[in-house]
Every structure is written in structure tokens, then in C-alpha cells.
């Protein structure tokens, strides 16, 4: 049971996430995003093995962000009328305003829970392979992205190296954050120059080994769409439908 979300086809999962997010964007009532958030949380609890400590850590900035939305909507929200609930620092808060503000804040929570569900249950390499096999992403592009992905740790090391080289020569004397931001160019340019050289070398190596980038039918690691994917799609879509209908019903 608890590995179902991990075994799901990444492309199918991605499409479901996209469809749900776009659908939710059309609902401004308070309940739809809240119900959806609860539903997704339930799915994660029952069908995945995610590390909840890490999950909470990732949710934290979004919770803070949703507070930002909450008060911006209350202070800068469009005039909607309605009865005044309470007055805060000279701003009159009406029930209509509060409902919209809470809805936007819950929307942030619903969006991020859905996104985290994808991020925590999907292997990036499988995702790209699946995009190539199910959505016919060009192999040239797919394998180039994989090259980039493999270079990630190298880039990180290089970043530290360049920083240390600068420090060794006494070049980073900036104290203020805006000075450091303008000085970022001094680190970025060598990193990009390194990236250009790496790109040329790996492209040459790929071509030397006979990589043509032509579309193909057979794959070394086939990733398929299985009945499980249809079943889970059904589950996701019914949660989505239930929260849309339930939200409209509860707020009327």
C-alpha cells in the first residue's frame, strides 16, 4: 500500500498535479482548497512513505507565505462590501474579505501539499525517462537534461572552489548584502565558462559514442502506464471533484 504513490507513472502524476492546480485556481471559496488539502494529506498518509520531518520543514516557508497572502488580501483586497467583523489597525475587515483572504491562504497550502506530494515521491531520472517515453520528449533534449543533472554535484563543488579561490586572493571583502549580490557576477562568470566547456566536451563525447538523438521505440529501462495509474488517477480526480462540489455546497 505505502509505495503506491512512489510506483506511479511520473508523467501521469505530473499531469494530475497540473490539472488539479489549474482547476483549483478557479475556486475562490473558503472550503474547496481546504478540503483538497485535507484529501491530499490523507493520500500521503496512507499511500506513501515520506519523511514527515522533512515535509514539515518544506511546508514551513509556505505556511509563512500564506500568512503574507492573508494580510495582503485583507489590507489591499478589492472593496467587496459585507458586514464589518472587526477593526484592526484602522482597517475594517468584512466577512467577505476575510473569506477571500482565507481562501487564498488555504490555496497556497493546497498547492504546496500537492507539489510536495510529487516532489517527495518521484525519482527525477525516472521522471525525465518517462517524459521521453510517454510524452515523446526529444531524446536529444532528454539526455542533455540528464547530462546537466549529472553535473549538479560537480557544479556545487566548483562553486565552493571559486569562492575559496577568491577568498585566498583576498577578493571577497564585501560586507553588505547588496554588495555581495552585485559581486555575484564574479562567481557566476567562471561557473558559466566552466559550464560552456563541460557542455562542449560532453556533447563531443556523446557524438563520438554514436549518439544521434533520433526518436526510438525500444528503451533500456521501459517505464509504462499500468492499471495502477488509472486507479490512482481516479482517486485523485474524485478528491478534486469532491472538494470542488463540497466547497460550493458548503459556502452557499
Amino acid at each position, binding site marked *: 500500500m505505502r509505495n503506491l504513490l512512489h510506483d506511479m507513472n511520473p508523467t501521469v502524476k*505530473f499531469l494530475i*498535479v*497540473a490539472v488539479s*492546480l489549474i482547476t483549483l*485556481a*478557479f475556486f475562490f471559496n473558503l472550503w474547496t482548497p481546504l478540503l483538497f488539502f485535507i484529501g491530499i494529506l490523507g493520500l500521503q498518509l496512507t499511500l506513501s512513505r515520506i519523511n514527515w520531518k522533512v515535509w514539515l520543514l518544506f*511546508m514551513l*516557508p*509556505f505556511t*509563512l*507565505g500564506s*500568512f*503574507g*497572502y492573508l494580510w*495582503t*488580501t485583507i489590507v*489591499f*483586497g*478589492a472593496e467587496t462590501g459585507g458586514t464589518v467583523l472587526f477593526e484592526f489597525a484602522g482597517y475594517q475587515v468584512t466577512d467577505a474579505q476575510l473569506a*477571500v483572504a482565507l481562501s*487564498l491562504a488555504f*490555496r497556497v497550502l493546497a*498547492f*504546496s501539499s*500537492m*507539489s*510536495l506530494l*510529487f*516532489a517527495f515521491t518521484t525519482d*527525477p531520472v525516472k521522471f525525465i525517462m518517462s517524459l521521453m517515453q510517454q510524452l515523446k520528449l*526529444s531524446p*536529444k*533534449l532528454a539526455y*542533455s*537534461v540528464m*547530462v*546537466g*543533472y549529472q*553535473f*549538479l554535484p560537480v*557544479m*556545487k563543488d566548483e*562553486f565552493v572552489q571559486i569562492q575559496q579561490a577568491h577568498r585566498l586572493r583576498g577578493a571577497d571583502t564585501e560586507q553588505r548584502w547588496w554588495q555581495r549580490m552585485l559581486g555575484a*557576477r564574479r562567481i*557566476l*562568470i567562471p*561557473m*558559466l*565558462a566552466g*559550464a*560552456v*566547456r*563541460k*557542455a*562542449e566536451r560532453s*556533447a*563531443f563525447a*556523446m557524438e563520438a559514442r554514436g*549518439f544521434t*538523438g533520433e526518436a526510438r521505440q525500444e528503451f533500456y529501462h521501459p517505464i509504462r502506464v499500468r492499471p495502477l495509474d488509472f486507479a490512482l488517477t481516479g482517486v485523485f480526480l474524485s478528491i478534486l471533484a469532491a472538494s470542488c462540489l463540497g466547497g460550493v455546497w458548503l459556502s452557499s
Partner: protein
Amino acid sequence: MLKGWKLKEIVLMSLFGVVFGIVYLLFVHVGNIWAGVIGPLAYEWMFGIWFIVSIISMYIIRRPGAAFLPETLAALIEVVLGHAAGPRLILSGVVQGLGAEAAFALTRYRHFTLPILMLSGAGAAIFSFVYGYFMSGYAALDPSFVILMLTLRILSGAIIAGIGGKYIADGLFATGSLRGYAIARAQKGDARA
């Protein structure tokens, strides 16, 4: 879309996506700290940072798609690295990339001067704003506040992404590592300047 691209150009574009995916993610953390305190307005003035890879890549490679693809890739890499916004970010990457691409497509990929680069940054700003208008529910905000956000974002796109992108790409060109790409041919003055 990739017909006529050399493999080394595609790999270069993907590595740009990786480098800027890292850079974008760093700035997301900076932006998040602001956003918790002052709400969505926090991101607007620095939004141009997230369009920059389109302009740099297009300025160097100069082929149809060179603005759209790396922006999408950078978003993908951000998601892979652990941006908690997840796949939603890929969608906004696609939208921003299309906006940046639009300016170059309008000029039929013939001109890569500073005004066009700035226009491209502004295009990305407008596209991403329209997307944000629906996804983040800006419709619920006061119209004058929405216009303030839009103006800030367009300025940020034109200045940070347009001018900043050209500044970085020119700096990179000066290192001499870009020989063999369209930017070097154009600087010599024989093609598509």
C-alpha cells in the same frame, strides 16, 4: 523545435538550466523571507532574476526555442533540487519562457540588441503576471495594487533580466569560451547581428 540545433548547443542550454536552477533557488529563499513579512509584493521588484536565463541563452545561441527551453529546464532543475513549489513551478517556467521567447519571435530572431533583450524581459514579466493573476488569485486584490505589482514586475524584467542578462553574457563572451556559438559569429559581423 530542435531541428538544426547542434548537440553541444542543446547540452550548453541544459547546463545553463542547471546553473540558473541553482541561482533561482537561492533567490527563492531570499524572496521567501521577504514574502513572509510583506506579502506577494516582496517578489515583484526582484522578479527579473527568474527570467535571466532566457535572455542569456538566447543572446548566445540565437535559435528559436533558446529562450523558452532553458527557462523550463531551470524550473525543472529547481523542482529536482527541492523547491517546495514542485511541478507548479515547471508550469510557471513554461509561461515565463514563452513570454521571453515572444519578443524574439516577433522580431523573427534577427535582432539581439539591448532594446529587444529588455522587451523580452518585459514579455516574460507580462506573461508570468497573467499566469499569476489566475493562479494566485490577484483578482481578489485592489486594482491599483495589482497595477503597482505589474509595473514593478515589468520594470524588474526589463532591467534585471534584460540589462543584467546582456551584462553577464558579455562578460562570459569576454572569457573567450563562447567561440563556436552564434554570439561569436555575430560579433565578428558576418551573420545575424
